[in-house]
């Protein structure tokens, strides 16, 4: 080496403190962009994903229908039969779905015909607030998968006030809501504080807290003197006090309760916070570019903790809606009913925007209400509804992930030849 000096001058010492950015950093940025796109993309993609998922759902419905299989057995002699069977199978299923989720035209009068829609809204009630909770963390660049644990804590602690505290009629549910929200907020705050001060990833911590929460609540429900109904050995609480239960919203013959109004109010409040308040400005800045937010003097640790608290409070509220609205006869450790996880899908489909989450929550409420009716009337497997929900997530999340994985450019990225105003 001493006599040959043809190589270009090797950069010497002074660079070591700051190396040129390696591809690793660029790569990290690429994944961050993919996550942003999945959680915050436009509404059209959501709509298309739903339609595509329902199309695949239709194929599954037809494919799993024994009548279709039978007709397909003699397809080549009478192909018309097969198509007729497919049509009947799919249209039958969707008619049943409509009857179960929107309006049952087999009923004599409007009042009983409209009941399915109220069922849809009842199912949607906790999904909306839970979806808001998850969507809020997406906007702040966080991922709260601890919906289950936060709902359980909210339901358990709120529910305890609901059956045990002797409070007057209007005050009682209000106190339950506040306590339940505080319990959910506390549970999520653990993950928020750990993230802010130790860097522990909130996904891992919230998932683990789901188990801790579940077994904690299960233990409280199985322990005499805590949440267990007196005189019972089952892990179940006593029923809610009459004073605490959410009153029906439009009449006793419907299950729809006042909790739905709370959900609508929550949509408005969360919208205002995100779009019109300085706190939401900080959330969005941190979610989109944490370094720029920090450079601009925004306290990112504080934002992380507050966002997790608010998210947990909303999920706690979903838990309270379950015990005071859906299942008022006493709750078990399964009171969350998977809503904490469905909320992730609802938030994704709603593109993390409050009004979008409202629409997505109602759609998922309809899936629940209509799914049972499809199964009862047409023998369609209820699992197909789950498949459709999963496909929605797949269609939403897959394109950005695949682009990030294979370094593909965004569609239309080449068109960035744009100089303003000339």
């Amino acid at each position, binding site marked *: 080496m001493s006599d040959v000096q043809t190589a270009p001058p090797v950069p010497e010492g002074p*660079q*070591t403190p700051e190396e040129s950015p390696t591809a690793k950093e*660029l790569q990290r940025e690429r994944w961050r962009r993919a996550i942003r796109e999945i959680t915050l993309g436009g509404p059209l993609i959501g709509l298309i994903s739903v339609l595509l998922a329902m199309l695949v759902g239709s194929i599954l419905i037809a494919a799993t229908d024994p009548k279709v299989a039978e007709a397909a057995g003699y397809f080549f002699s009478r192909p018309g039969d097969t198509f007729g069977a497919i049509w009947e199978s799919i249209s039958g299923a969707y008619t049943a779905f409509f009857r179960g989720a929107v309006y049952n035209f087999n009923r004599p009068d409007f009042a009983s015909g409209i009941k399915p829609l109220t069922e849809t809204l009842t199912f949607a009630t906790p999904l909306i607030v839970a979806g808001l909770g998850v969507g809020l963390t997406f906007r702040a660049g966080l991922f709260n998968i601890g919906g289950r644990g936060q709902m359980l804590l909210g339901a358990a602690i709120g529910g305890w006030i609901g059956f045990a505290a002797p409070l007057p009629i209007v005050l009682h549910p209000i106190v339950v809501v506040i306590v339940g929200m505080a319990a959910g907020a506390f549970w999520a705050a653990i993950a928020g504080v750990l993230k802010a001060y130790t860097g522990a990833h909130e996904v891992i911590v919230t998932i683990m807290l789901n188990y801790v929460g579940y077994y904690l609540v299960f233990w409280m429900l199985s322990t005499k003197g805590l949440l267990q109904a007196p005189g019972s050995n089952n892990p179940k609480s006593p029923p809610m006090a009459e004073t605490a239960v959410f009153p029906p919203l439009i009449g006793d013959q419907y299950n729809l309760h006042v909790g739905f109004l709370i959900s609508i109010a929550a949509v408005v409040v969360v919208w205002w916070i995100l779009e019109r308040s300085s706190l939401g400005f900080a959330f969005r*800045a941190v979610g989109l570019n944490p370094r720029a937010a920090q450079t*601009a003097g925004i306290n990112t640790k504080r934002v992380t903790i507050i966002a997790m608290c608010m998210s947990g409070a909303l999920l706690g509220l979903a838990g309270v809606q379950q015990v005071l609205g859906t299942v008022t006869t006493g709750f078990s450790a399964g009171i969350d009913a998977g809503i904490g996880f469905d909320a992730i899908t609802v938030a994704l489909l709603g593109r993390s925007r409050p009004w979008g989450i409202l629409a997505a929550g109602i759609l998922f409420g309809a899936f629940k209400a209509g799914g049972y009716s499809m199964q009862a009337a047409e023998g369609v497997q209820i699992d197909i509804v789950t498949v459709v929900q999963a496909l929605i997530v797949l269609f939403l999340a897959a394109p950005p992930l695949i682009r990030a994985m294979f370094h593909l450019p965004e569609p239309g990225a*080449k068109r960035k*030849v744009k*100089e*303003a*105003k000339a």
Partner: protein
Amino acid sequence: MKLELRGITKTFGALVANDHIDLTVEPGEIHCLLGENGAGKSTLMNVLYGLLQADSGEILLDDVVQHFKGPRDAMKAGIGMVHQHFMLIPVFTVAENVMLGHEPTKFAGALDLATARERVREISARFGFDVDPDALVEDLPVGVQQRVEIIKALSRDAQVLVFDEPTAVLTPQETDELMAIMRQLSESGTAIVFITHKLREVREVADRITVIRLGKVVGEASPTASNEELATLMVGRDVDLVVDREPAQPGAPRLVVEGLTVADHMGNVVVNDVSFEVRAGEIVGVAGVQGNGQTELTEALVGLRHLLRGRVELDGDDVTKDKVRAVLDAGVGYIPEDRSADGLVKQFTVAENLMLDRSNGAPFVRFGALQRGVLARFAEETVEEFDIRTPSIAEQAGRLSGGNQQKVVVARELSREIGVLIASQPTRGVDVGSIEFIHKRIVAARDAGVAVLVVSTELEEIQALSDRIIVMYRGRIVGIVPGDASRETLGLMMAGETPAGAAA
């Protein structure tokens, strides 16, 4: 191989990106395509490379008309392109990346990695690149990744090599190395098209210069043309590269730094016992080769980094332990060196970015609520005053050109009540017209009594702006010299030597 473009026209809707452009590049020639951001240089090269189809005009190689349907045709015809953003797969090795797309195979389609490796070594050796064929691309510094791109093009026997803004991502040393490589390539007969908007690079390496403005060829120049002549051609009007400024009238010290010491996350001391002061009404420049502690110094001053030792005073108040929010509130304007990473939220609107560091109170926030009317009025005025070219204040900041994005950051900081301005690389990646504008605003801030600290790795910028110059080397201050110190003096000091007469 001789490349000729005849009457290339390309429109996007109403925008004419290329308007009857003619260009000839001879073998062994380095032909510079000079123009501001958005002038249509990259569009032209994408047409050449088959990525875009021209509306009219033709491409000739050695006087034969070519019809490229895609990059594959262009590559086959002998055109290679080194993109601004590398088209490499990070988890692949150098050899794997180089063979990607025309993989040599052995019996039954088995990949012949050995041949690819040999090819990388052979080209590396021919041009004195120091590239290990088995290194993973993601582990390589940007400058070396670029060499992989060059090897990739050469391994396909490219006779015409296009470099699209290749120096935007490079450190000064890496830039110099690239210039040497380009000269070597041209000596071996390759025709080179070099796209850039940096005047210094053009004059250093070009054989011929074609200037493009608003999609048209506006002139040819020789490398002997002065910076002013080239800039005037590019921008279309006279440009002052030398900022007019009166001698400074320094007042009382506003920013006083004593014994500042900072370590990076590995624990290495990167700013070592730095002391200086900046007075009201003067601009102090911090010169130095990239990576000698300037970045860490500015970040420590605004509270983004933890100090090991030392003391920072603002107008007599100790702000050493203050967080960013408190430092900004105490009257410090901060232009971070990397606007994409630290200065802007690209998905936010121009208006939102203009209030990014004022989201904590009046006038843009009252009782926790954003004051959208106040913000809209302020944004309209500021866009007007700072000549930010944007269709509206509701446009996403990331959609503006680099120069206009930088103007958003500069406007945000200069429209606040500030006593001290810390500007780190205030014109990096910015076109000539915007550089002139930003420099004038910085001088205007000085004349209004603001104490200004400008950090730049461009010596021209330091010399154009500074009343006094601090030179940093390996985290220490080598010396503080008057603003009119010669380039030679500064160059020596940047290498760590202390010339006679420089006050330490």
